[in-house]
């Protein structure tokens, strides 16, 4: 259903919808076009101002399988652009660019992965950001696209009419900039890392819909190191994804009975309990001695909170950050699949806020793009950590487990490590490109630790093996094989006896 006439008098609607006269991609479902409005909003949040037609066309090519799209012109623009020198040629060139983008692997494989609106928006911003920066003409309207799918079903004559109702200098200059930057855009399209998109789909975006999350996503997509983190994560994720929730007793009315427990509902009460006389039954109830049948598939209570403490100081630049973040993501995924609660926490000279996973969704973009802002101050960070762990433990009673990812020169004062250890179990992964045993006086306080050398990082089999060895020890019951590996270290990944 076409947009209401009242809407079409609003420049905020006429402007973007009229720009669709340039469009070369048409969704077969109007709901898809509605998604384009979300992408446009996301791009504007990121400061990337482009004609709606570009966002719509590029976004659809990366968001929807080909059979849901029709590629071709929507209307004949010739007479409208004839007055502007070179505009007709630019329109033709734009259509060729769209055809080329449609042939790209990133577009062809849109069907393989469900790409969220936040991800598509960030991807379009990454690809067309440079074009937007070259446009000097100010857009004469603020976008106010209607949340009405019908508004996007305009036919050719309607689009021509809407195009003609406003000054289109902005659209034409953007078009010229895109055509001039054709090779750059296509280079960026060809260099899109599908693995990154896959990982983001696999692990989730955890709040990337918010403005801050969009910025994280864009930063992650534009950061060359992201590819390495992603490659590494994907190498080890298959073993992670085998993780299953541990069966355990619970009170949910699902599956079969697994045994007897002290908690439950009346319908699962062991009937012989009713044989006690009234006073004794009341006492047993008050003292939690009453027996219930309990069921498997425990989900009602998480007894631990895993803090993934990642060093974001400048000392981690390069391959240290790659391994640390990749391993942290994989560890988090493993723990989440095991039914544990995880929270990411970066630190440099400060302990940054705790960012929790949302259900099974991890804040992947945040982890990939986080950048420290200050120097380094382990004294302050570990003092703050010990204090917070003590407080949180008192408040919710769950056992905290700290997984530290840092470099091998991380000298933390021993008393502070002891203070943290008094509140939580700790395991640590030290990334040491130079190799060798870290000369740190607190290693014996850790429940387990590993040292990962440059050699390990650089060798295909070794590094994945190392990571799997570490992850293999990340049990829900104990951090990183605590009992087996207390106080030991081994280069290459396995905790030494």
């Amino acid at each position, binding site marked *: 259903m076409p947009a209401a006439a009242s809407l079409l008098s609003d420049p905020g609607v006429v402007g973007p919808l009229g720009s669709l006269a340039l469009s070369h991609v048409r969704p077969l479902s109007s709901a898809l076009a509605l998604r384009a409005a979300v992408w446009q909003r996301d791009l504007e949040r990121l400061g990337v101002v482009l004609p709606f037609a570009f966002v719509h066309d590029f976004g659809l090519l990366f968001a929807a399988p080909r059979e849901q799209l029709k590629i071709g012109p929507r209307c004949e623009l010739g007479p409208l652009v004839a007055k502007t020198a070179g505009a007709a040629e630019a329109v033709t060139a734009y259509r060729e660019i769209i055809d080329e983008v449609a042939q790209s692997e990133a577009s062809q494989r849109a069907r393989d992965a469900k790409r969220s609106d936040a991800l598509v928006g960030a991807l379009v911003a990454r690809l067309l950001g*440079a074009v937007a920066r070259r446009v000097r003409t100010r857009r004469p309207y603020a976008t106010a696209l209607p949340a009405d799918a019908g508004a996007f079903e305009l036919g050719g004559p309607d689009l021509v009419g809407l195009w003609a109702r406003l000054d289109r200098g902005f659209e034409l200059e953007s078009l010229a900039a895109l055509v001039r930057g054709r090779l750059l855009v296509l280079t960026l399209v060809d260099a899109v890392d599908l693995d990154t998109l896959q990982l983001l789909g696999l692990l989730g975006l955890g709040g990337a819909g918010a403005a801050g999350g969009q910025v994280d996503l864009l930063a992650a997509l534009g950061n060359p190191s992201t590819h390495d983190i992603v490659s590494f994560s994907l190498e080890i994720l298959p073993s992670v994804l085998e993780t299953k929730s541990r069966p355990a007793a619970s009170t949910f009315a699902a599956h079969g009975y697994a045994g007897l427990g002290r908690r439950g509902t009346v319908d699962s009460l062991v009937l012989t309990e009713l044989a006690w006389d009234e006073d004794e039954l009341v006492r047993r109830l008050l003292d939690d001695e009453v027996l219930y049948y309990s069921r498997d598939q425990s989900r009602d209570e998480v007894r631990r909170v895993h803090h993934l403490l990642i060093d974001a100081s400048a000392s981690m630049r390069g391959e240290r950050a790659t391994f640390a973040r990749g391993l942290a993501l994989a560890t988090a995924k493993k723990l989440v699949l095991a039914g544990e609660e995880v929270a990411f926490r970066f630190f440099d000279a400060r302990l940054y806020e705790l960012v929790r996973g949302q259900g099974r969704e991890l804040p992947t973009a945040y982890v990939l793009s986080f950048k420290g802002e200050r120097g380094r101050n382990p004294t302050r960070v570990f003092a703050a950590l010990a204090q917070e762990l003590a407080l949180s433990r008192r408040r919710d009673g769950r056992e905290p487990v700290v997984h530290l990812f840092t*470099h091998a020169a991380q000298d933390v004062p021993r008393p502070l490590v002891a203070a943290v250890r008094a509140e939580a179990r700790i395991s640590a992964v030290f990334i040491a490109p130079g190799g060798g045993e870290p000369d740190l006086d607190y290693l014996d306080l850790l429940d387990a630790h590993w040292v990962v050398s440059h050699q390990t990082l650089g060798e295909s089999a070794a590094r994945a093996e190392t990571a799997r060895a570490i992850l293999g020890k990340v049990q829900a019951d104990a951090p990183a094989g605590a009992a087996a590996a207390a106080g030991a270290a081994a280069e290459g990944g396995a905790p030494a006896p």
Partner: protein
Amino acid sequence: MIEWYDPAGVEDEAGFGYLVARARAALGRDEGGQAVRLLVAALRQAHVREDEYARAAALLRDAYAGLGRYREALTVEWYRTGAQPGRAPVAEGLLRRALPSDQARTLLLTGEVRRAAEAFESAGLLVRAAIAFEQSREWGQARALWSRLAQSLCAAPSDLYAAALAQFNLFRTSHLAGDARAARAASVAATHLLEEAADRLETSGLRERAFDCYQVLISIGRQTGVFEHVLEGYVNILRILQEDHLRYYALQTYEEAVIAARNEGEFVAAATLAREMAAYARKQGEPAVANYATMAEASLWQGVAKASGERGAPPSLVENALLAAVASLGELGQYRSVGALYTRLGELAAEERRRTHYARAGRRYADAHDERVDAQPLPAHLRHEAGFPDVWHVDLIEWEQQGSAAEACADVLLEPGPSADVTRRRALVGRLVALSAEADPSSGRAALLVCGALEHLELYGILAPLEALARRPEAEVRAAALKALSRFLYKRTFVTVRAGLADESPEVVRAATSALEQLRFPHAFDPLARVYREATRPEVRHAALRALGRIELVEAAELLVGVLAFGAADDRRVVVQTLKESRGRVFVEVANAALGETNATARGAIREILNARGIAPERAPGGGAN
């Protein structure tokens, strides 16, 4: 004897020759005090010819010696011998009568370093003594002294930075003495202390001191072979330089950091630094340097690919590195090179799907060419020639001197580098005044004279004595110290000025406000903006605004446009008046760009400013300038 140094007692317009002649006559009459007074007045005239100045100085030395003022006589002798090529030995008679600390300085001047070290030690100056032992390569002796100092400082570390420097010196000398275990312990202690000190200093706004901490961290990293410390130091130094708007210094440091990382085989870290350098240079309007950095980034990613390939890394690592190089080269329009990389990628990829993808992408660039780009490193004339000073010595010396003006002036006087004659002469007079004042520490009048003598030195090393003077109980002295500090264009100056703004004495607040207005230099933006935001007194806000109005910086201009739009009426008036009288161009550019976006009040004020300066406002998109 402080009255000898009061310039008010000598004729204002008296010439150098006249004063010296009168001094000679006074000496002839055996009026040593009068002669000193006249000669000091003559020596304040720092621009006379050296031969005349040296003759007058010799006369002053003799006058002091005749009065039994051997410290002062030796000070004049330092000027004279220091000024001569080859540095002739100092008269033995003076040396014998001098204090151990002055003897030590003199022995250093004459090259007797070992004896100087012992003299410093007997004077209780551990830092100086340890440095002198280091100069004579007696590492064991130096280490023992650094160890003593480190223990005393770490026992109750009220000054984390000084404690860190002492530990660092202990590390260096332990290392040089071959004691690896002690060196390791000291390096760990120094690292902890430096990290904590840097954090605290930055939090309290003393970024330049935090900068020094990171500089020492780089040195620790280099000497221990721990590249993480080097990276930490460089990245934080870069952050501080950028926050302080020292763009050329920052760009030069970026280059150094990239080279350091590359030399360590840390290609990924080097490439990310080069990438940041390109972004920063572009933002700072240095496209040639930005292009140079992007080229370097592309080359480094190719280095990553090569190194990864050579050590049998996973193909995905090689592929990712080459794709990163593709993106960098694409940004610069180097499409022929992009095509070549895609060909390489096609050969590398393990999966058929990837090979097809790269082959198809590579064909697109078959006829492409590399665009010509202006890519240049930072030009030589914009580079800082001097490397980092040995802050682990310099700053500990300052700590040990406890704000003594006499010692700070002696350092300038005896500075082995090419100090300008004028500076050395001012330091000579400064030390003479300070020696007298420090002999009577309770005298406010003496302290006032010291402020006046230090005012024209304008060197960083003189800040500590002025800071000490600004903490004295007499309001008059505090005000004089602040007046002197208005000539010291360093960020550190703001610490004392801000304290002055909160002083209980209106006289001191006035002096601090006046000093604030004089502190206008690019990296003063942050502290000035902070003062403006936090000040409750209108006159303080106005002084900060007047200073900001004379800083040629986009951030300053944007702040002023903000004041014009949303500030109080009296603040707006001050900004308008200041900018009408200014000749800067940055505000004009920022104001023109803001015309279309800001409110009517600001538009009116901007038009008024531009009109007063005879500049036509540019028409903004949407007709904002109308």
